[in-house]
């Protein structure tokens, strides 16, 4: 299999190859330096949190909003008192509380929430579906977001330096380059995964930034973009596929299967979608055609050189693990950071797939035990005491409240994290679920975590492995929950026993569910097994243009419409 090609390739190709080689050492250095800085801060977490909070106060104290509210008085607090004074002075906020301020900020492009210019607005879907505005400020980009992504890549590079061996070793699907189509008072409004255009020399600039599969002129639709990526890397010595969601890796294989004929023909002819591209490679085309004839082909057969993949692997994303093992056997894996558009929470520093250290140099973090009804207390205007990172107890779940240096202070994110363990006083955490995302016919408030745990238990009783599933409320008399779950042993005869086992398990996991079942206000949960790829295919069918990179699998559905679209075994 050919590796790097020489710079005597076609002019356009040699241009980006030259940029790749020019950039490699600098990129490697930046990423490893950022990782070292993170490790140093993890060794002194209190100092890091104090520094971050002082920075947040420093960047916001002179802002219009802080002056209007009198928060600027915080600058008089000594370092020892700042964390306490900060929590006493400033209220816990929800995104909606910031909306009027963000509208002012949109007009001034800085100065309202922080004293840093807003370079871009980051788009993220709110739970209501209305896109949010997250200010992407110069200070936040330089001092926080860039160090975070570099530190994560520093970990990838520390454990797998081969991913920068040559220009074709890495396929990055974490980020894209697309021309923005939406503007807020003249300023681009786009997903954080869209790194186009670069804002300045401090912006994200991996060596493949000018690679032909990464350019903005690659088609925007998920399938077509993927086709371009696959085609351009077929026959190359690909070592690493970087993704955010595991479904992207599953989708990659599905699309190779779906577009077998076109890919083989393009490879044979030296074309891309029929247009000249690269040299004809009939040998590789024949090899690909033979292996794709097997419906169970693996990505490691397409690219035998693969040594690494990365994506989210905790929480509901972990349900993909069996599928990933099947298509990427023997390939090392590393997790993607735990983050949202609003900010980073945890960054991988090693090969731990379950949890990652709280990224103490990224934000000022506060926590509230998950069992406390935070929303109700805030609605009632009550004061809520928060815990700092060193007051958390391993094994427990917490609401996350995060202050970022982009102006979104004390933001109740709605995310609930589990503390796995602690190292050097730093909690290692993973995302469990969204607060308030539950099913409840009659007050049982069934969470995704509840159902996953009950399913795992029920499946284990029958000697089955749990894969992807969907769960929705079925409005009958009495109402009940309906689950469709993948299994290689799908059969109607198993469904009854499995449903009983999961019903029992759910009653143990959620005492309100048990109570409602006892009083017959709820019918028993029903579990139907479906073939292994059925849920995955359904999930992929929901991926649309515009949500390709950030598209997430969500086990909880608003209704049971999926039942009619997933074929029975």
């Amino acid at each position, binding site marked *: 299999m050919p590796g790097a090609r020489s710079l005597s390739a076609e002019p356009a190709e040699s241009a980006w190859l030259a940029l790749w080689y020019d950039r490699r050492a600098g990129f490697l250095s930046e990423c490893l330096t950022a990782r070292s800085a993170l490790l140093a801060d993890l060794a002194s977490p209190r100092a890091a949190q104090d520094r971050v909070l002082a920075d947040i106060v420093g960047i916001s104290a002179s802002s219009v909003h802080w002056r209007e509210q009198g928060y600027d008085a915080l600058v008089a607090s000594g370092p020892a008192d700042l964390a306490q004074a900060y929590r006493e002075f400033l209220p816990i906020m929800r995104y909606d509380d910031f909306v009027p301020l963000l509208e002012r900020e949109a007009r*001034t492009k800085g100065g309202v929430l922080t004293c840093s210019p807003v370079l871009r607005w980051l788009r993220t879907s709110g739970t209501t579906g209305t896109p949010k505005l997250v200010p992407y400020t110069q200070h936040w980009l330089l001092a926080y977001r860039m160090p975070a992504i570099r530190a994560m890549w520093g970990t990838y590079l520390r454990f797998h330096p081969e991913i920068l061996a040559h220009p074709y070793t890495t396929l990055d699907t974490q980020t894209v380059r697309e021309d923005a189509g939406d503007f807020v*008072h003249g300023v681009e409004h786009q997903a954080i995964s869209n790194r186009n255009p670069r804002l300045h020399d401090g912006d994200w600039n991996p060596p493949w930034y000018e690679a032909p599969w990464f350019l903005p002129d690659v088609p925007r639709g998920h399938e077509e973009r993927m086709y371009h990526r696959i085609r351009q890397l077929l026959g190359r010595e690909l070592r690493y596929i970087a993704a955010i969601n595991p479904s992207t890796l599953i989708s990659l294989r599905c699309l190779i299967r779906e577009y077998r004929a076109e890919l083989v023909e393009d490879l044979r002819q030296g074309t891309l979608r029929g247009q000249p591209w690269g040299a004809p490679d009939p040998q590789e085309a024949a090899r690909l055609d033979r292996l794709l004839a097997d419906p169970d082909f693996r990505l490691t057969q397409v690219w035998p050189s693969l040594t690494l993949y990365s994506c989210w692997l905790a929480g509901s994303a972990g349900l993909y693990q069996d599928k990933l093992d099947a298509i990427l056997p023997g390939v090392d894996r590393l997790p993607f950071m735990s983050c949202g558009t609003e900010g980073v929470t945890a960054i991988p520093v090693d090969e731990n797939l379950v949890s990652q250290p709280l990224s103490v140099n990224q934000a000022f973090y506060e926590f509230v035990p998950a069992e406390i009804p935070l929303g109700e207390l805030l609605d009632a205007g009550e004061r809520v005491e928060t815990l700092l990172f060193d007051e958390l107890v391993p094994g427990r779940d917490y609401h996350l409240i995060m202050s970022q240096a982009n102006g979104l202070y004390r933001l109740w994110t709605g995310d609930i994290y589990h503390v796995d363990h602690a190292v050097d006083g730093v909690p290692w955490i993973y995302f469990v679920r969204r607060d308030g995302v539950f099913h409840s016919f009659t007050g049982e408030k069934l969470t995704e975590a509840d159902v996953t745990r009950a399913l795992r238990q029920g499946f284990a009783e029958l000697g089955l492995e749990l894969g992807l599933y969907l769960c929705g409320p079925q409005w009958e008399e009495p109402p009940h929950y309906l689950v469709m779950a993948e299994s290689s042993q799908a059969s109607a005869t198993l469904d009854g026993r499995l449903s009983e086992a999961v019903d029992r398990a759910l009653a143990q996991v959620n005492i309100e569910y048990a109570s409602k079942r006892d009083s017959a206000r709820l019918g028993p949960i029903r579990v139907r097994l479906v073939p292994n790829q059925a849920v995955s295919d359904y999930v992929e069918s929901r991926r649309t243009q515009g949500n390709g990179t950030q598209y997430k699998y969500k086990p909880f559905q608003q209704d049971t419409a999926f039942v009619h679209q997933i074929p029975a075994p």
Partner: protein
Amino acid sequence: MFEPTGATPPDIRREIIPVPCDDVALDLHVWQPPRPRAAVFYFHGLQSHAGWLWETGPRFAERGVALFVLDRRGSGTSEGARGEIPDAATVLADYAAALAVVRDLIGEETALCLFGHCLGGSFLAALLKSGTLHVPYEAAVFCSAWLGKLHATLSEDQLRALACDNGTQPHDVGLSAADFTADPRYRRFIDGDDLAIRSLTGRSRAALLQLEAMYLDPEAPALPPDVATAFVSGSADPIVDLDDAHRTFIQLTAGRGEIALLPTDRHYLLYTEVRDRLISWTTDFISAARPRHAVGARRHG
């Protein structure tokens, strides 16, 4: 798109500083790099405000230059009646107050360039000629400014009528985004900007006439000879009669100023392909202005 330099960009301070002026609070918008080597004080035009300069501020800062923009009374985020320009003395006092704040912030050693865009050039000219500005400055740039426009385009009768106009009815200012820029993105922004001024009262136009008269008056004090002055615009401008504007500029500066033309036919240079050239040119102009003396590639006089 930015031009890669390989240098780490500065962590720019973006502040909105309140400047109390009589009974209203005016907003002084700031983009400031660490340890600026120079500063620009920008007089915005009739329609625009500081919120139009979100890309300009960081680009000046990347060159080590701080940018200050006062949202004029009634404009942008400042207080004051919309569509109203107060009498000349009030407007000039507002600017003088803001400039005093700026000089205080940057210190005596940092070069200060006063930069008037379009109608902002008229305010700048009036301020310089009024004798009311006691803040030292090193350079003055008039950008796409039709200096003396009312006097050049109105008849004697119309000028007399306008001088007495005390009307409060709003009149459309008749500006088109297409004249400002050819870039659809900026056109959409201008058309949708709810802070932009779209109309002006009759008495406001009278105030503008009053301001013009101040700098057109041949008896007005001359500009300090050690201040570098320049007029810069596109090679053509759909809003400004450049020949007339140049004549007024030459008269204003007694022929000691520089005139520069950049290759665009649109009015708002900062929303055209010459933006970075304008910023670089201005930065170089300030640098050359220190110590205070006039320099220029093209002299008129």
